[in-house]
Structure formats: C-alpha cells, structure tokens
C-alpha cells in the first residue's frame, strides 16, 4: 500500500501535537515499550506505539479513526517507561483534545442510565466527562 503524505499538513499536525502536549514525538524509536506496558492496549484497535507512528507520519485522519486515545486511561505507565522520555499520556491528551475541541463527544452523558450515575463514584463522573466529552 502506498501512502502519499502531503508535507505541509504533516508538519502542521506534528506542530499541533507538540504545542498541545509539549512532547516531541519524532524522538520515538518505535520500541513498543509503551504498548507492552499499557493496561488498556488489548482493547485498542491500534496500540500506543502504532498511534505514535501514525502521528510521526502526520497521518492524522487515520489516527483519528483509531480508538487509542479514547481507550487510554491516562495512567502514565507508558510515560514513565518510555526510553526516549516521551510523556505519551500527554500525546494521548493532545489527540483527544483535537477532537473534543470540535465539540465532538466520545460518550454522551445524557445516555447514561440513572442506575449507572447513582453507582459511579463522583470522581469517575468528573474524570470521565473531563476526558471523554467536550
């Protein structure tokens, strides 16, 4: 499969991620430590390592089709283990923010059942809405 990456938008995307996360994803050497450490990776269509690769290549549309950042629990395991010192939890946040800032939600609070809301600890609701809704 050949993919043509328009240089300008790749750079723009890369810069946007850097601005939001403060992280230089070009440092990633694709070792896969993040994916191996991630407690959620089995439920990701694309592991954290692959997601970084897509971001490195500026393939933002393909990255947005993945669920990686929406399954990420911001646990920072990858961040403390990355041998290149990339705070990957911040990169995930940047990718989430790029969608959330367009007013798109990943979960719809109005669709939660009364039972679910009653049972959930308050921090689950506050944190979940903060991370998964705009």
């Amino acid at each position, binding site marked *: 499969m050949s993919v043509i990456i328009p240089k300008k938008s790749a750079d723009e995307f890369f810069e946007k991620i850097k*601005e*939001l*996360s*403060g992280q230089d994803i070009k440092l990633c050497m694709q070792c896969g430590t993040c994916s191996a450490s991630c*407690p*959620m990776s*089995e*439920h990701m269509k694309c592991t954290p390592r692959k997601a970084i690769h897509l971001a490195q290549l500026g393939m933002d549309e393909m990255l947005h089709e993945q669920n990686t950042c*929406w*399954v990420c*629990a*911001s*646990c*920072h*395991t990858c*961040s*403390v283990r990355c041998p290149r010192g990339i*705070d990957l*939890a*911040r990169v*995930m*946040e*940047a990718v989430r*923010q790029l969608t959330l800032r367009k007013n798109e939600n*990943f*979960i719809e609070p109005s669709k*939660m059942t009364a039972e679910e809301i009653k*049972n*959930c*600890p*308050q*921090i*689950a*609701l*506050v*944190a*979940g*809405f*903060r*991370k*998964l809704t705009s």
Partner: protein
Amino acid sequence: MKIKYYPGCTLKYKAKNLEDSAVASLEALGCEVEEIERWNCCGAVYSLAEDDLIHKVAPVRDLIRVKEQGGDKVVTICSMCYNTLARANLMMKEDEEKRDTINRFMDEEIDYAGEVEVLHLLTFLRDEIGWDKVKEKVKKPLTDLKVAPYYGCTLQRPEEVGIEPLGSFELMSGFLEAIGAIPVDFPGAAMCCGSYQVLGNAEAVQDAAGKIISTAQTAGAEALAASCPLCEYNLGKEQDVQIFYFTQLLAAALGLDAEVSRFELNTGNAGELLKRKNFL
C-alpha cells in the same frame, strides 16, 4: 496535633466509608482534623494539555483556601485528589509564566506560589505520626491477614509527585505491618484499574481490574488495601479478593467501632471477612 484536611467530593458521598474511617482513626491517633472551609472539587484529573490552564484553577483555588486559612500543609486521602492537587501545586511552584497567568486570572484571590505542602494520608501517618506510635495505639492487630498494598496509577506517577519512588511499595507495606497485617508483594501494585474508562470502555476496565485481582490472589492475598474510590469501584466488581480502604483496616486495628468504617458502602462483604477473623 491539628491538621488541615481536604476531602474532595467522592469522600462526601460514595466513599463516606473512606472519610469516616480516616477521620475517626486520625482522632484516635491524637489529631484534630480541620476540614478546609469552602473547598471545591479538584477536577479529579490533572489537565495534560499545555494550553489548558482553566482546569488548573480549581485545584489551585483549594490550595489558596489552605494558605488563607493559615495552613502550610494539607492532608488528602483520595489518590486522585492527591495527584491533582500535588501536580497543580508543583506547577504553581515551578512554572513562573503559568503561575503568573493563574494568579492574575484569579485576581479576587490572594497570590499563590506553591507554599502549601500537599500530603497523602499515608505519608502523613509515616512522617508526622510514625509507625511506632501507630503500633502503640493498635488494640486489635490484624494478625496474619494477608493484604496486597495497592497503589494504582496516581500515587506514584508521575514520579515528581509520587508518594514514593516507582517500584517501591514500602510506604503502604510499612503501614500494613504497623497494624499487624502481612503485606503481600504482588505485581499488580502499580497497575492501573482502567480508571474513568469505566464510563467509556467498561470491558477494558473489567479486564484491567481482573488482572490486578488475579495477581493479588496468586500472590496469596486475602484482601487488598486501596486509597482511591475509583479503584475500589472498579476492583470491587471482581469478587475474588476483598477490597478495603486502608483507613478501614486502620480503624479496625485501632479497635474503633465498626460503624465508622461503613462497610455497607464497600462492594462485597468487607465487614464479614474482618468479623470472621475476629478483628471486629
């Protein structure tokens, strides 16, 4: 000893068992617990986007409350509150530009530059009370109870706010020893339970929680000690190992009335296990 205490929203409702057992235990250890006045929710998660300062206003406001009410330390119990407050504090201490923006934004408040020290209750117990004093006050040691000390994701990461260095679990193990229990070393101690993804990806949370519980069980734990209401919720759904708040174990060891621990709010039969072992 007087201490300033930040409860956070979950401890006032869903995790009343965490708050009540902690406050009663602290009082039994000779502390006068002063809840911060006019505190607000810390936001539960620390905002990771560089430009997102508005979500840091809430935790900073709490720290300002402590400072204006004359405190130089604040003790908090919920792991997520601890993480959020400690990181916001560090930012106010170290990032001059952000500090300045936030202080100017909150021009109705006093200026803040990270003067307050944010302490997790476990750190407070070790450093300000001391394990020897705790041991002295224990009336019903939890002899032979095998407990897995569980830190989850927010007590050690990121490293700059960790209550102890990555990979070391001496703090909670020391606590468990002080109350007579046997700390069980297990590989899931710092694994994440899936956290807020219980709202978005419940199945992934179930798998993550299941792994933690099965490593604790394999290591021989009968119970697991937690300090986070979200961990308790996610892990509690797995029935194989009983989840307690560490403060409930403390209250039991101090010989306090079982009512302060409000075991009915735990998932599973937390009180039953302690009763069966004659700790209640």
